[in-house]
């Protein structure tokens, strides 16, 4: 896939977004463009604003300046419940610390977003079992998060994020808390599942070797791109 040739309908476009947590600026006029199915890696030193950017892209954080278009729609123009609806149907999150719901079993964690997305009970069951099989967790499906290892938790979190078949997956250091072997396993899964569902990926990472599953790597420092020019700048 040729990343530099812009496709006619980008999935996600960020135009000159800025954000500060008073008084300190965190994002300074960033622009970004992501095509459907494209995979992007974000790297940069700690505190450079990677997580913040990810949250803004997913609509769980608002920007001060600039705008973010998801499938051509300005996120800022949507109200909170419309943004929530977007997260229920098209945007998935994977976090460094998994954030599984502690009171639910692994299976129920995967099923929950499907329930709220209004998927029928029968189809839910099928999809959940498929995903459990895909992440190799069928045998541990009844366990609760406190009973699972970190790698197992991350695989469940991945399955949960992909259950709704999102167009965009935002992953914040998905392997940051895992040993090399588990990390590799999760990474392969991520690539595989994204490919099969045609999901675009934005992944924050500190480990250069993990960028192998991505089409592009962007480097950040102090809320700005460094090195290569941003692809949205024509």
């Amino acid at each position: 896939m040729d990343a530099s040739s812009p496709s006619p309908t980008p999935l996600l476009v960020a135009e000159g977004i800025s954000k500060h947590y008073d008084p300190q600026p965190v994002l300074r006029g960033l622009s970004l463009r992501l095509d459907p199915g494209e995979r992007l890696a974000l790297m940069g030193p700690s505190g450079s604003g990677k997580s913040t950017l990810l949250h803004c892209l997913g609509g769980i954080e608002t920007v001060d300046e600039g705008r973010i278009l998801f499938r051509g729609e300005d996120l800022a123009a949507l109200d909170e419940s419309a943004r929530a609806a977007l997260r229920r149907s098209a945007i998935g999150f994977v976090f460094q610390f998994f954030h599984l719901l502690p009171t639910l079993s692994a299976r129920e964690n995967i099923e929950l977003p499907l329930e709220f997305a209004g998927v029928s009970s029968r189809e839910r069951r099928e999809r959940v079992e498929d995903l459990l099989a895909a992440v190799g967790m069928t045998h541990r499906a009844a366990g609760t998060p406190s009973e699972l290892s970190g790698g197992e938790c991350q695989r469940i979190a991945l399955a949960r994020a992909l259950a709704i078949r999102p167009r965009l997956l935002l992953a914040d250091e998905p392997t940051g808390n895992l040993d090399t072997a588990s990390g590799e396993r999760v990474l392969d899964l991520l690539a595989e599942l994204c490919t099969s569902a045609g999901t675009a990926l934005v992944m924050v990472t500190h480990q250069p070797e993990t960028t192998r599953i991505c089409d592009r790597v962007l480097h950040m420092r102090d809320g700005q791109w460094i090195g290569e020019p941003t692809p949205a700048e024509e």
Partner: protein
Amino acid sequence: MRARPLPHASASPAPPGPARRLGALWRKTSLRHARNQPWQTLALVAILGLGVGGFLSIQMANRAAVTGFEGFTDAVTGRSTVTVEKAVGAFSAGELGRIRDTVGLRPAEVVPLVEGEAATAGTDPGRPLRLLGVDLVGIQNAPVADSSADLLPPPGEEPGLWSILRDRRSAWVAPEVARREGLSPGETWTIRARGEEHALTVRGVLPPGEGGVSVPPNLVVLDLAAARSLLDRGGVDRVEILVDPELPDAEALRRILAEELAGVGGGAWQVLLPGQQQAAGAQMTAAFRLNLLILSLIALLVGLYLIALGMDAAVVKRRREIGILRSLGLTAGEIRKLWALDIAALALAGTAAGLVLGSLGSQLVVRAVARTVNTLYLETTAASAQLQAGDVAMALLLGLGGGLLAAWLPLRDAASTPPAQVLSAGRFRPGLGLLRRPGLGLVLVVFGLAVLWLPPVPLPAGSRFPVAGYAAAFAWLIGGTLLVAGIVRPVARALAGRRSLPPALRHGFQRLRAASSRHRLAVAGLFVATGMALSMGIMVGSFESTVVRWLNVRFQADVYLSAPDAGGQPGVPFATVEWLEAQPEVRAVLPSARFPVPLEGRTVLLAGARYPDLLEEEEFLWIEEPLPLSAQPADADSFAVVNETFRYRFGKGQGDRVTLTTPAGPRTLWIRAVKADYGNDRGLLETDLRALRSWFDIPFYTNAVIHTEPGAPIPLETWRARETGLQFLRQGELRATALRIFGETFTIAQAIQVLGLGVAFAGLALALLTIIREDAASLRTLRCLGLDERRIAKVLATEGAGLAAVAVLGGLVLSLALAALLIFVINRQSFGWTLLYRLPATEMALQAVAIVATGALVGWLCARSTRARDRPSSPDS
């Protein structure tokens, strides 16, 4: 350079002392938590305060009610003496000596009295007079401020006071008598007593009474010896023990004397304390207050639950910190000390809040009933609503003691669990392990049922203590708590398994399915609080309908004739009843005589009533309907109608026989019927009046009820003017008075109920708030998964409503069980009464629904308030 061994843990040259280190650590951890999360800290303090305050205000409201009634009864009777009367006959000289020996050298005076009837003889003959014989020489020493004191002659200026007092013909008359007979001191006056005329010398006019106690209008006071010879009595009728009312512990001394005298006299003497001869219904209000007290004791338990809830939240909130601190090398002991500091600070703040809440709460309660209370209960109520030193001590005990106790278990777990387990979230389950034992709860409930077969324990004073009732109540309360706490998870699990449920509801149950120790504590506290408030409602409803029904039965006649409690005639003269029967307006006069008699070592009230007229004129609440007289066995001297209390006390009902010792020899009564009677808790044995009069020498009737011809005007004023020493009351007035007394008690009970419900509501709200707030991370995750505010609100509302519903359902069952226990076991065993069991079903249903709705509303509001505070953001932040 000398080699120095590597320091083991700390390289700092002079580590600070352990106390200072702990202090610094406390400032850095606990204090900062408090400062950074002022809202949560406030909620904790509020929960503690609610626990302490709820208990205190119920305590104070109850005290206001109790002292109110004591003030009321004192005001009604105006007695400040201990009265010793004999069931049958007069006191002999030997008995009088025993009374004097018992009183001994204590600051109290023994005043023997003879009472009897006489009549005027001169120009206006036949007017009833009440003769009172007092030891006029002895009473000179008495430390009196009693109605009897007013009977003293004015201090004489003449030298011959003693000779006047000893003069058998000396008499002092009431102002009314002096006016009507035209008497002045020094005159000679003739009266009739026992068919003979006696000439008396009027020595003075009695001073009018003080402090609302009036001198009976037809009173004539004579020396004891003179009265005895005039009335032809061998002994004295009554002995009053006057205790100096100025003594600081006069009340206590009276009580002690009464107890000792009752012991010396065995069953033969009847010892009455001030205010023991009561207006109708006083017995029943006593029973009602006992029931109130029991229920308000449950408030203590609610308070403890709330405190445990707050403490558990405090511990769980920071269990990670405990793990981290321990992994950094703090010992379990040091952690405990750190936490003791914390808990003490929290508990102190909570106790202070509780004191404020408590006095506010009780002020509200008292104000709600203030207007009526003040007319009825005098000033006592206002004073008893003040916080007293004892209350502060109680609050400290409850707040600090309860707090330490409640925090101890979760804390001990957290401090001694290996840090790794504490840190690896979920696996470590702190909190009261006891609440995870529904099996034990079941055992306790069954134990409570089994214990119900235990008989009550007789107390030395003659009453009986219903151990079974109290033991069952306690077992059910604790057992029910465990069951309800244990049932949350299974119920939620069952509901969460229903895949057809709307997702928000289902996830609400999924959250509840993993109910934390705080969920369980909240359920337990709410369960006890609603159980208390609802059973209070049943109690009030049952008492109210019983009282109304009973008063309607009791006051069926048009006019009620009796001798006033203080002063006036000692009873209703036979002649008065005959005269009344001859009046054209009167259809029937039903006199009755009643006095205590010993029976099987206890005292019962023996009464005589005019049968069968009584059965024709009036209706009764029959427990067992009267058998026909033809069924009376030949060996029985007469029949008797007994009350329910008698049946329980003596185990004798319809068809059984009772043998009494009478001056005419032993007499056997055949029990014909059992009736409900809530005015007497000693046992009543009512027989035919004619039979009674043939066995006992009865000087007068105790009272009489008058049924008038329908539609005829009742010439009450004429009757009153003729029979000045008696009290005529319209039944309507009596019933209204009795209903008013009960009404006030019910008002206070309802106020307590409202307070209990308020504590339940507020406790639930606070508990849910802390539970939900602590779980903010899960809510943020839900937002990232695309749940909007409406859906999250639905999830939390389900969680809150589900929690409340389990507690309220349990509370409903508990209230039914507790109320049944109070009515069918505790009241029956201690008073011998069965109340009507009335369920205020609509009211209860409304309250239950309101509590569940509160749960839902609090969940809903929590979702809204968390949104306002945390903008949607990553769970990482």
